């Protein structure tokens, strides 16, 4: 019994220690905005890596997200709701929920895990110590550009994802379900609410922050050689994915 309590106590202490360390890192990164102009080349490199290089996978996921949501929405509403609402239902689901969340989960794997692996490798091969020994602040040099690139590119990628998802939904509705374009879009235009778009994009900013912050934190705290880097990569994805879903719920209760 005492063994169980001791283990539980250790887990609780570890949880709060790590949470505290993550907030300290976040504080240092947020304070690093002052050096962004000076480090614009580092930021630009990360905007390309995190944003531009992620575009193909985001577009692919977006297309199928829209397609499947149109198909399944049609199945769910066909006997209860007029079919002209299919476009509106799909659009709302994509803009508010599916676009930001699925894009974020995809990038948690592609970007977050990659940051954790890259920084983790630098950590276990003493490259971060080498950076620090050159009197270069490793948070400023490594974490700040990645974090700000993440929060800039995530909403942009979400916009691409939203647009391609609606296009995918329209394609399925029009070609496979035989719903004319005029009917598909008929309820979207009059019920368009900029607040939905804002809420979806705000979620994306938060998810981008989570992905890059967790990737950096886990990367900086990697130990144990190649095995440690592998574990850090997995841990980064799992923790980011959990936090994305938790914050998705929290933000949903705040916004709607």
């Amino acid at each position: 019994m005492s063994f169980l309590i001791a283990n539980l106590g250790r887990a609780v202490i570890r949880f709060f220690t790590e949470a505290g360390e993550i907030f300290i890192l976040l504080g240092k990164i947020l304070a690093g905005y002052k050096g962004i102009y000076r480090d614009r080349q580092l930021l630009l490199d990360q905007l390309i890596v995190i944003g531009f290089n992620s575009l193909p996978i985001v577009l692919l996921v977006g297309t199928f997200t829209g397609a499947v949501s149109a198909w399944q929405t049609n199945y769910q509403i066909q006997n209860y709701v007029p079919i002209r609402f299919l476009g509106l239902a799909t659009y709302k689901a994509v803009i508010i929920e599916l676009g930001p969340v699925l894009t974020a989960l995809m990038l948690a794997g592609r970007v977050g895990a990659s940051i954790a692996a890259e920084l983790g490798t630098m950590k276990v091969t003493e490259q971060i110590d080498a950076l620090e020994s050159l009197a270069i602040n490793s948070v400023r040099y490594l974490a700040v550009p990645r974090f700000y690139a993440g929060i800039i590119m995530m909403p942009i990628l979400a916009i691409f994802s939203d647009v391609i998802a609606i296009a995918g939904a329209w394609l399925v509705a029009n070609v496979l379900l035989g719903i004319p374009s005029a009917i598909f879009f008929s309820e979207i235009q009059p019920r368009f609410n900029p607040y939905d778009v804002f809420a979806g994009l705000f979620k994306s900013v938060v998810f981008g922050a989570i992905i890059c912050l967790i990737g950096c934190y886990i990367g900086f705290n990697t130990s144990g050689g190649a095995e440690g880097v592998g574990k850090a990569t997995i841990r980064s994805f799992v923790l980011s994915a959990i936090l994305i879903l938790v914050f998705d719920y929290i933000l949903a209760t705040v916004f709607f």
Partner: protein
Amino acid sequence: MIEIKNLVKYFGDNPVLRGVNLTIQTGECIVIIGRSGCGKSVLLKQLVGLLYPDSGEILIDGEDLTQMSEQEIYKTRRKFGVLFQSAALFDSMTVSENISLGLHEHTDLPETEIAAIVESKLRMVGLPGIENLKPAELSGGMRKRVGLARALAMDPKYVLYDEPTTGLDPIMADIINEMIMRLNQELDVTSIVVTHDMTSAYKVADRIVMLHRGLIIYDGTPEQVKNTDDPVVRQFIEGRAEGPIKPIPTSGVGSGNRRSI
């Protein structure tokens, strides 16, 4: 001058340094010897603030590193060049970018001047013309020498060498030893070398200190070390399994309170 006073460092419950006292005079080449895992690298990393001591003082030119703000520590680090055990080259950068990184970060020198400094440092370590190679294209000895060129790029006052000859063939190890001696004499730097390679220690040292069980247990010239009758030092320098030195428990080492980032 560097003065280390009563330096104590624990990793978990394991005491790695238990009150180290050491004075390093400006311009000397001091070699710290001791078994693997005895805390030599931990001591070295604390000199540049990469690890925090639990207690004690580290006076760099009279200023206590343990009492400095983060900004002051970064400023103090510019006095140091560090050659890491694995060289720790930035593998996404070319040799030239590795060496010039500190110059780009801390100076406003024009590109032509930075390129000239990179070229001169590479010539100094005997590797001219490899500016555009990536670390993956270099041999172990070349990586160490590029790491040394990077450590020297900012013309440091103190150069720290963490196991500079480990993993190198004897000829390359001797080339590195010659280089350490030459740099110490020509550039008038203070060198602190951590090693368990006694050939290297005898060759480069003005003074050798031995770290054992978290304490400095011996301090003398290479000649004094060779002739000592201290049983612990003798066992180590002769490389005997039998003797007063017992295996070092390693549990918990490497997971201590690193400077949070």
